[in-house]
């Protein structure tokens, strides 16, 4: 138990400190790196409570793909300068009340969720029954996702697809005068249409472009 507590507190302290550093560090790229550290320590916490599938998916999706693209955008755009302007200007105090309101709301929501969870006794029974049946975390997730919640699951997938198509439509523009490579055209070229043999008379030459 002691070892478990030590690991838990190590990971949670790293998670909280790095979450604070995401907002506190002045360099934007450092912020993203702290965000990644936060994701990793939270996935470690997931694994510690036995939710190994969630922890790994967190690593693959958030750290392996989302954060890479995030880092990509932050590096390409000059976000760093804009952020510095925010810190330098006097107007930054305007954001404080809004931030406070949002964070209070989130805090209250978390309290409500934890309270509701504590006063619902069946959840503990379900927890116990799961631990008695020797079924892995991944299997139980799959059994719930693809039976009871199949419609919700499919709809969330469709929403993501619509968001992706929308983003592509918004940024897509047809440019004219762009030369494109057509593999089929290249491969299907024959010698007859590509090569021409000409008789060249001396001192006269040939005209090639006609």
């Amino acid at each position, binding site marked *: 138990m002691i*070892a478990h507590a030590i690991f838990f507190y190590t990971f949670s302290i790293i998670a909280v400190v790095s979450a604070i550093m995401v907002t506190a560090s002045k360099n934007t*790229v450092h912020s993203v*790196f702290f965000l*990644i550290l936060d994701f990793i320590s939270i996935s470690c916490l997931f694994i510690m409570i036995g939710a*190994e*599938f969630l922890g*790994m*998916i967190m*690593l*693959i999706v958030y*750290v*392996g*793909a989302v954060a*890479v*693209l995030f*880092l*990509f955008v932050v*590096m*390409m755009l000059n976000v760093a300068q804009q952020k510095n302007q925010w810190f330098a200007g006097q107007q930054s105090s305007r954001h404080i009340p809004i931030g406070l309101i949002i964070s209070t709301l989130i805090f209250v929501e978390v309290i409500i969720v934890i309270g509701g969870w504590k006063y619902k006794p069946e959840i503990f029974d379900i927890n116990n029954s799961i631990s008695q049946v020797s079924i*892995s*975390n*991944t*299997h139980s997730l799959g059994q719930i996702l693809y039976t009871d919640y199949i419609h919700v699951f499919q709809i969330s997938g469709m929403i993501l697809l619509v968001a992706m198509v929308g983003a592509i439509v918004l940024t897509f523009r047809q440019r004219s005068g762009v030369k494109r*490579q057509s593999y089929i055209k290249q491969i299907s070229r024959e010698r007859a249409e590509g090569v021409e043999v000409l008789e060249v008379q001396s001192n006269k030459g040939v005209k090639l472009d006609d």
Partner: protein
Amino acid sequence: MEYLNIVFQEVYKILFLLVPVLVSVAMVVWLDRRVWAFVQKRQGPNVVGPFGLLQSLADALKYIFKEIIIPSSSNKVIFILAPIVTMTLALIAWAVIPFSATQVLADINVGILYLFAVSSLGVYGIIMGGWASNSKYPFLGAIRSAAQMVSYEVSIGVIIINVLLCVGSLNLNDIVIAQQNMWFVIPLFPMFVIFFISALAETNRPPFDLPEAEAELVAGYQTEYSGMMYAMFWLGEYANILLMCAMGAILFLGGWMSPIDVYPFTLVPGAIWLILKILLLFILFALVKAIVPRYRYDQLMRLGWKVFLPLSLIWVVLTASYLFYFNLLPVN
């Protein structure tokens, strides 16, 4: 006292795994150069030791005694962290590789997801190195590799789903045991080919070595690195290549299982079979490096998104419907 004993036991186990991996990485660099040379009718490294076997050792010694130069305008912490991240990620993945039914450091339930997660984190070492160098060539190399590795990860993920459909478990040992009757390379052969090519792209090997294309980017993200830090990048890269070969061997070539289940072959320990399969795949990697010219960047992206991703998705549908129709889905 008891805790201490457990910790020491674990440390011994880890060392017993890591030291052979590091030595084999050094040997594999020699093998790579040797195969490359033979294809081009050269001799390759053959001076240091018998057949030049100690060449990598000599190179390592040279790197250790060289000065580590840190550019004055670089971001020093991240610059130093980058090779460490690459190397660490390449090594921690070996924890879940099963060398036989019992010889595995951590026999976790989600082994294949762990492997996939660690290999997808590998891009961070490159991005960090490229950005922290604060120089044009490394930055361009890092941007290229970020896009490339994220693209090819997608198709590798879909290919893994193909295999998992046939197995019904995420545990690596279960995946190996599921291939007892037939290696997955036979029913899923197109997926094996796509996996192999995606693995080339994922590890930045030729013909997809655009992040370090020497004709355009000097040495890509490694340009500003020198001495031991450069060597760590290099070791991490080869450890990653070996890891991808191990992944291919486990997913498609039956892992530690002997190719035919008859008497003299079953005597050979599983670790040897796995190493032989990894070596076979690695020699293929080396051959591809020697005979294929480098892709253009748009061709690379086209191959990843427009060819491999649709193909592997279609194959997922095919596999799932075949298994469903013939009632072969592994349900437990």
